[in-house]
């Protein structure tokens, strides 16, 4: 990138099972105001707004329309990404890089508590060929989990270690929904949902929202003493139809990571990155994603974890926040990862702070079994 885009304000809610003590608009107004205050800007300074939400989760058509007032979009440019919040950040970044905007607000919200999560994810699939057979994100992920685990001889206990790491680390994260001292036995004894995925292997479903303020290089330098820069970004999508994909591969994530590393000038992610916040909705995915992002060889995700490389004090901490296993605001998740990454490189991640964090990776995914992949590198 010739000109860089800066992140000058961030905000996230606490992730909770149920935020019905607030209307959606109350929650969104809160994060938007906090992010603008964090950036030191007011509504007048904002040129454009990009929101991320999904109609079926919101239970209404073009559901971004309910946010017009509370994101301050009246008489401004607003567009919506019907998918992950990190995807919306790509769109926001482009509004700045193309010169259409100097200051862009990106907002993502989801209320997992409103509807029926697996019913909603059943609607992702082909209504003629796949929906009637009950395919949803859980059962599709179980197919991927089992295939991946069989191919690389990974056990259910191995996957349980991911949960143990995340739930224990989440105790340092006041925004986490689930955070507790956990053992592999706890995970192994949790009820089987879809073999080999058990209740504790799966992220909870949360209510939550995030907002960030993006600024052009010039504006970021003028407004902020220490903006966090987007140093690299890559996105890639693979075939939607599950039956066309080898679910143990995941070329899209490998490609998206490679592109982001090239842009950021990263040759060895393990040495050069200080931490990674990855969107893994199920325990096995954290292992699979870290392999595809090139942190270790194929099939070695578990070894990499067992060596302590991904622990909070490791060579490349993965999800010091606890990740999605500790809180899963569904379509917000990728933006949560970015907010965490920004807090880390600012040195403001409090009890979960990774020492001397200067460059971090944020990952988001959309669609089933990692169909769409977003990777962003941020740093000082």
């Amino acid at each position, binding site marked *: 990138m010739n000109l860089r885009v800066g992140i000058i304000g961030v905000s996230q809610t*606490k992730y*909770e099972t*149920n935020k*019905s*003590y607030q209307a959606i608009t109350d929650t969104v107004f809160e994060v938007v105001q906090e992010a603008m205050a964090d950036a030191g800007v007011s509504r007048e300074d904002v040129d454009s707004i990009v929101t991320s939400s999904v109609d079926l989760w919101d*239970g209404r058509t073009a559901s971004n329309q309910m946010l017009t007032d509370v994101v301050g979009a009246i008489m401004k440019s607003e567009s919506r990404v019907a998918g992950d919040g990190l995807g919306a950040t790509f769109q926001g970044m482009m509004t700045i890089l193309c010169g259409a905007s100097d200051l862009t607000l990106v907002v993502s919200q989801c209320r997992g508590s409103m509807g029926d999560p*697996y*019913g909603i994810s059943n609607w992702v699939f*082909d*209504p*003629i*060929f*796949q*929906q*009637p*057979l*009950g*395919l*949803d994100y*859980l*059962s*599709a992920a*179980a*197919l*991927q*989990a*089992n*295939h991946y685990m*069989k191919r690389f001889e990974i056990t259910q206990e191995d996957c349980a270690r991911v949960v143990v790491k995340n739930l224990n680390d989440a105790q340092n994260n006041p925004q986490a929904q689930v955070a507790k001292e956990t053992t592999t036995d706890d995970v192994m004894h949790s*009820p*089987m*949902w*879809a*073999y*080999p*995925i058990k209740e504790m292997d799966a992220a909870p479903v949360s209510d939550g929202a995030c907002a960030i303020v993006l600024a052009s290089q010039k504006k970021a330098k003028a407004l902020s003493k220490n903006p966090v820069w987007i140093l690299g970004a890559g996105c890639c999508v693979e*075939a939607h*139809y*599950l*039956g*066309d994909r080898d*679910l143990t591969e995941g070329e899209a994530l490998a490609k998206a990571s490679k592109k982001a590393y090239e842009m950021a000038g990263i040759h060895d992610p393990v040495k050069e990155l200080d931490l990674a916040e990855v969107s893994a909705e199920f325990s096995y995915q954290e292992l699979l994603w870290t392999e595809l992002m090139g942190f270790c060889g194929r099939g070695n995700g578990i070894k990499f974890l067992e060596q302590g490389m991904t622990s909070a004090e490791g060579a490349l901490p993965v999800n010091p926040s606890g990740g999605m296993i500790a809180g899963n605001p569904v379509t917000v998740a990728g933006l949560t990862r970015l907010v965490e990454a920004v807090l880390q490189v600012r040195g403001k991640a409090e009890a979960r702070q990774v020492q001397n964090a200067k460059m971090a990776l944020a990952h988001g995914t959309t669609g089933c079994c990692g169909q769409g992949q977003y990777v962003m590198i941020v740093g000082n």
Partner: protein
Amino acid sequence: MKKDNQLEELLRIPVHMKLHYRFPAGTHYTRFFREMKDSGKIMGVKCTQCGRVLVPPRPVCGECFVKTGDWVPVGPKGTVKAYTSIYIKFIDGSTGKPRPSPYGSGLIQLDGAFSTINHILEEGDPEKLYIGMRVEAVLKEKREGNIGDILFFKTIT
């Protein structure tokens, strides 16, 4: 942060959305379901460029970005490429009732096809299921022209 007293006070209004759609099946799904209904054959289409046989059949090969060509019969036997056993309740859209669990669900590569299809497996025990397992489609006797015409995949040896 959670304010328990408010959570009790504020209303949550139940809304039930009931919408009806008529999804066009297009030329390819229509022919697929008609062939299966009338002759009990499962069909795929072959890409004119890469030669892969795609099931479900579709007008375009996404990999090559060209129109697909000839129709070829596939299956009814096939191989399990991925599987799971579902333990949590799923409401079966065709009956409106939960499907008895656990039940087997898999990605099945029909003989002669490149892509897999997801379907119900007769075998529901994860200890007995394996990748590479041979299965065969069991069709309904009175077929209606939809995916439910394949009842499940039975285990063969």
